């Protein structure tokens, strides 16, 4: 893909991120951190490709470790956010 296109997406997404996140109230800042953490586990997409190539032991091993780290991030992040957000919803 064209580099300029990717860069454009990057810059616009940063601006979008600023717009969305400034509206998050301080009371939800901790779940925001764990939830956004889970989203940054999107690198799992690259890890799956690396581990799945069948391209030599080391690439597969590095890919495997990357999947483990990223999935811990994804599952741990979303789940712990859910746990916290349910607490906020319980009352009020």
């Amino acid at each position, binding site marked *: 893909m064209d580099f300029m296109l990717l860069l454009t997406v990057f810059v616009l997404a940063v601006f979008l*991120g600023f717009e969305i996140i400034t509206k998050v109230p301080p*009371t*939800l800042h901790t779940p*925001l951190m764990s939830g*956004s953490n889970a989203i940054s586990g999107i*690198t799992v997409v690259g890890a799956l490709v690396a581990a799945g190539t069948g391209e030599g032991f080391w690439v597969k091993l590095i890919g495997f470790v990357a999947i483990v780290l990223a999935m811990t991030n994804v599952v741990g992040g979303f789940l712990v956010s859910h746990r916290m957000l349910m607490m906020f919803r319980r*009352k009020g």
Partner: protein
Amino acid sequence: MDPSTLKILQNLTYLVASALFIFGLKGLSHPRKAVRGNMLGSIGMLLAILATLVGEHILSWGWVLAGLVVGSGFGVFLAVTVPMTGMPQMVGVLNGFGGGASFLVAGAELAMVIARSAPATGEAAAHVAEGSHASSLQFLIATALSGLIGSVTLFGSFVAAGKLQELHITIGGKKYWLSNSILLPGRNGINALVFLACLALCVAVVGNPGTMVWYVLLVIVAAVLGVLITIPIGGADMPVVIALLNSYSGLAAAATGFVINNNVLIIAGSLVGASGLILTAIMCKAMNRSLANVMFATMGPQAGAPSADDVYAGKIKSVSADEIAMMLDGAQRVVIVPGYGLAVSQAQHAVRDFANLLESRGTTVEYAIHPVAGRMPGHMNVLLAEADVPYEKLLEMDAINPTLETVDVGIVVGANDVVNPVARTDPNSPIAGMPIIDIDKCRSVIVIKRSLSPGFAGIPNPLFANPNTSMFFNDGKKAFMEIISALKENA
């Protein structure tokens, strides 16, 4: 399905996933919509993973499935077992994992490109011709950045999590806490050198695409940099560091997106990067310090400042639980200011019971939350939410400050610097200009604290010596339990 249709479907799914991430974060703008938002985000992630598994030529399924199972299992284990008081460490470790995954993926990509372009096989030339992206400047620069940011994030986060976990070693009967500021002589010079070495190694990675050596070296030196920039930062500055590392983990993911030419990584990564940066800015503003000041300078009492004896001598009024129960008699409005001490003594449930008791007697109870109270953004809110305190009662500093003069009793539990009036009055103080909760303006103030020891800024707090302040020297949780039984006896 022919390959090009499959590719289009895969990219469309990635686009849907990106949109779901945006909806997910948008949902966090209100506690009532937040659970649904979080679910939308996780559905987006599931779609992205499925699109990758279906759309790519996965050959070694064993490795892939093992990774998915082990990682998910570990994630579930962490998320279910972590206590709310351990949340800062948990987020710290997860930040690190995100960074680690990013630099591993970039490294694996580089290794694949090297393997494919090895001149040994006849196929290789075709791969090189086809893989114009793989040898491009974009690929190499993004790989170097991913290695640098990812490694700094992983190792910086582990140090931060160790500090938050209060790790320490005992040498010769003396305890050394990782959470203290560890100040190496000439550390700013050393850090600058290590940073320059990282940049030089980035250039080496870009200039020598045929070998992994420079990339591995870059990751190692960046790890050293991650450790060095985190160890001088002390406990109370951790909210800034955690927020900053959160941002790095996103930026590392975005850099990896440039490595593998994938928009969903770039979008998700930059959203997280922006989120971490905003939180960092909010934390710095709440301490009236620049990011550079947090990272490179340390707090401490300045020369010529009033000593603890000057401030406290003969002016401290210590009270018992019974006296506090009498002060609370007939109080219309009570405001509680929680700090890190509340988390340490796990006092959130006792505080909730105390507030319920007061409310049953017709007193209004609210909580004033300073942005940097605790060890991470929103730390106090999560602890109090765990104890079933409704979020409407958790008021931000700016909202509650103008109303504090009408409050009968202000109760400070385990907080110090964030209620130190010196921030308003002494322009030479290390916390001068820091926005504080003006709890000293309440008609009377009760401070629950184990001793007169100073807060993180290392300065005495004249609030404790105010004529309308009463000190209750006790552990947070025990203090509230004693006050509760005193209230019940008096009733």
